[in-house]
Structure formats: C-alpha cells, structure tokens
C-alpha cells in the first residue's frame, strides 16, 4: 500500500527543495567570498622582475586559483554546517527520516558544488576581462588568457567534481563529530599526525585525485569516493535520537 522507495525519494526531494530555498543565503555568502578572492587576485598572484641595467623585465602572473581555493574551503564548511544541530533541526517539522535528511543534504551539496564551480569559473572570466580592460593589451602575454568554450565547460565539470568530493569529506567529518564532540579534537589530531608520519602515503592518495588526466576515469574515482563518504555518513546517523 505504501510505496516505500517512491515515498523516500519523493519526501527527500521535497526536503531538498525546502533546503534549497532555506539555505539560499549560503550561496550569497559564496559570491561574497569569491568577490573578496577576486580583489586579492587582481594584484597578481606572483611577481617577478629582473633587469641588467639597460633592460628591465617585470612579470606579473594572474590566476583565478585563489577564487577556486576559497570556493573549495567554502564547500567544505557547508558540508560540515549541514550536519550541525542547528541545520538538522529544520527537518523536524517536516516529514523526515534520517535517510531522507541525508539524501536532501547530499542533493543540496551537489547543487551548491555546481553553483560554486560555475561561479568561480565565471569569476575567472571576469578577472580576465578586468585585466584586459585595465592593461595596455600589448603587455599581456596570451598564455591561457583566452579560454575556449570547451575548456570553460571542462573547467566547470572538473571544479564541480572536486567540490562534490570536498563537500562529501566535510559532511563525513561533520557526521562523525555529531557522534561525540571529542572528535572535534581527535579528527584534526589524527589528520595532522598522519600527515607527518605517512607523508608519502598521503601524497599518493592526493595524486590519485589530482594527477588523473582522463576525465571519465577521474569522474569515476570521484563518484566512487563520494558514494563511500556519503554512505558512511548516512550509516552513522540512523540510530541518533533527536536532541533539542
């Protein structure tokens, strides 16, 4: 009589829409962060100059990597934020179970990742336009200055995948700290400890995600990792009682 799966999906989707509307202010926060990052990057991310008395060369490098970096940090904190009591509490007056709550959170993080990736890519374009207008055009070395539409889309897709990965990591860390506040101290301690002791291992893990040239393979890696991360997060919550 009661179609459980259909209802789980339908209520999760309703919750997702609810959260999307409720948390839209978080997306404005991202845009603010990106504008701040843009201001920092307009001065150039690195500066190099040399002269031999007759000729002096000065090179300013500009990049939107700061904008993307800030967006990555933002999505990480959004992942954690969604697991906090304050944000979980808004589910209570709705029709909810812990799984539908998680699914709607995941949906929100995906949309936030797509949004974050698109906007940070576009901020990169904006930066180029600002540079183009504000400089004498002959001074610009067109190394990767003009981006093709294909590259733009590729950048957005890859940015989205990274952001989903980072958000899933944040969500898992948030879910673990919900089990006990002690993890707030334990998790950073473990991460830093491991980083020092198993530096090579960490670098290898990092390379798995950062040095993948083939997009489908990269997407697959991210997908598998994200499913594991979100899966573990979801498994951690079903026995949690509502504390108010």
């Amino acid at each position, binding site marked *: 009589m009661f179609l459980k799966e259909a*209802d789980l999906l339908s209520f999760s989707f309703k919750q997702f829409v609810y959260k999307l509307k409720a948390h839209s202010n978080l997306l404005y926060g991202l845009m603010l962060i990106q504008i701040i990052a843009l201001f920092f990057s307009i001065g150039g991310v690195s500066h190099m100059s040399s002269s031999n008395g007759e000729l002096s060369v000065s090179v300013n490098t500009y990049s939107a990597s700061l904008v993307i970096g800030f967006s990555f940090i933002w999505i990480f904190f959004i992942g954690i934020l969604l697991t906090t009591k304050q944000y979980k509490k808004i589910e209570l007056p709705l029709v909810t179970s812990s799984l539908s709550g998680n699914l709607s959170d995941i949906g929100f993080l995906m949309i936030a990742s797509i949004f974050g990736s698109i906007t940070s890519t576009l901020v990169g374009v904006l930066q180029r336009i600002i540079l183009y207008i504000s400089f004498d055009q002959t001074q610009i070395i067109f190394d990767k200055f003009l981006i093709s539409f294909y590259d733009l889309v590729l950048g957005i897709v890859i940015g989205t995948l990274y952001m989903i990965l980072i958000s899933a990591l944040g969500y898992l860390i948030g879910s673990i700290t919900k089990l006990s506040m002690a993890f707030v101290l334990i998790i950073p301690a473990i991460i830093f400890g491991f980083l020092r002791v198993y530096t090579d291992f960490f670098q290898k893990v990092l390379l798995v995600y950062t040095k993948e040239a083939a997009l489908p393979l990269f997407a697959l890696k991210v997908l598998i990792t994200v499913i594991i991360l979100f899966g573990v997060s979801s498994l951690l919550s079903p026995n949690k009682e509502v504390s108010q």
Partner: protein
Amino acid sequence: MSVIQCQNVTRSYGKLKAIDNLSFAIEENKLTGLIGRNGAGKTTLLKLLAGYLKPTSGEIEVFSQKPFNNLEGSSKTMFVNDTMTFPDSFTLIDILSEVAPFYANWNSNLAKGLLDYFSINPKQPHSKLSKGSKSTFNSILGIASRCPLTIFDEPTSGMDSAVRKDFYKALLKDYLEYPRSIILSSHLINEVEGILEDILLLNQGVKSLHLPVLELKKFAIGLRGNAQVIQRFVEGKELIYQEEFAKGYLYVVLRSELIQPELKLVRQSGLDVLSISTDDLCIYLTAKSRGGIDYVFKRS
C-alpha cells in the same frame, strides 16, 4: 483500531526513569489529553510517540509501526512543540506554503485564515516571534496539517487567555469537521477538559489512569466532617487523599464506587458529601505525599 499501542514502555535517562513500564492504547479519532505535573514524563512520552526518541525497553507502535526514524510514521504524525525551528530565510507565510507539500491533508486556507485571525504579522521570520505568538503559530501548523495523528506538547504555553480559548475552539471545530487522533499535553486540566474525550494521567512516568473525561468526573467523591464518623465509613478502604483540615475534622477523597452503597447513611450521619473536580482529582492522584502542602507547614 488502535492508533497508538504501548507495551511496557520504559525510557530512562541514565538512572532516572522518565517513563516507567507504561502500557496503554489510544483508539482512532480520539481527542486525548495527556495530563501530568512538571516532570511527569509527558514530553518524553510524546517524543517517543513522535519517533524522536527510542524506548529503552518495551514496544511502541504508532499506526502498527515503530515510530523511531520512520518516514511513513513521520508523514502521518505532526508533533507540535515549542522547539520547532524554521529557517530564518522564511517568513511565516513562506513557512506555511513550504511546509504544505509535505502533508497530504494540509488545509492552506485554514492556515492562512488562522494566521490572519490571530493577527500575527506574516512577514516576519519565525525566530523573531514572541513566546506566545510562536506557540500560536506552531499550533496553527498543527491544526492545518490535519495529520492522522497530531500531537501538541503544551501548546498554549505563553499564549494569553483569549488566544488560548480561541485555540481550543479552533482545535475542537477542526477536529469535529475532520476527525483525527489528537493528543494534547497539559498540566492545566480544567482548561482542557471541556474539549477532551479521554484523559491519560501520568505520574512520575507511570500511568495513573486512562479514562473518558465523563467517567473521570464521577470517579471520586469527597467526605468532610467529624473524623471519628468518617473513620467508621472509610475503615479499610483505599483513600486517594486525606487531610485534617481542623482538629478532629477530616476531609477524605476516595473512589465513588467504594462508598456508593452507603452514601445515604453517610449523609444521615451529618457528613458533607462533595463532588471532586477533575483538576483536584488529578492533583490528589499525583500528589507526592499524602497530606499536601499543609504537611510541610505542620512539621516546620
């Protein structure tokens, strides 16, 4: 059909048993009052029913299913309490329209009408409301959601007397128009007994009684008069309450059925026979020590 079935339910917080071996059943489409004093376990029981908490032991079934972390149960249950939280990015009128898709029987005209009637500014966020307005708004959600099981936990706290009366009227009207199972917790029984059908009285996590209000009104009887005369009648009978209101004069309360056959004789002996209001009865039944507050003063 029973909407709620509890079998030997216990819920403890550490060593404290908030609910202790409680068994009861609530029939479909009843308006039940959950009455108890502060700390009697009312909120804990309601949270168990709403699926917020798990019982430490025993079985709870709401619509024949365990309510904890149950989506189907959640879709049929509305739990109104004073900790309901809504996003600050929503105004009240937004909340009404955003919550609506979740509840199949949602009556949006009623919700808007009530919001308008109670003259709460619909353009403000939920967190900015005063305590009374918050209770009113949450109760509006409870009424408008028309869930098969609607639970109100102390819905009137903070409401002024006029709003309280209107709320009870609105609840009763909508209940009559659209019957469903409603549980209303309160510690002010005289305020709610007019609309309730059944009363479940909770005392320190234990069920004191579960009766229709009409029966509760006739449940007990009070005798007042000369102590010796009273003693003759109540010898060996279980007393609900006993108070020596003056030297040699006694006031006792006991179940009506125990004294019914001798009532004529009692009156002839010059004793006052008093009916007991449900409010007083509940106080007597949940008294921690016989003798009431006077006892404290007598000792000191």
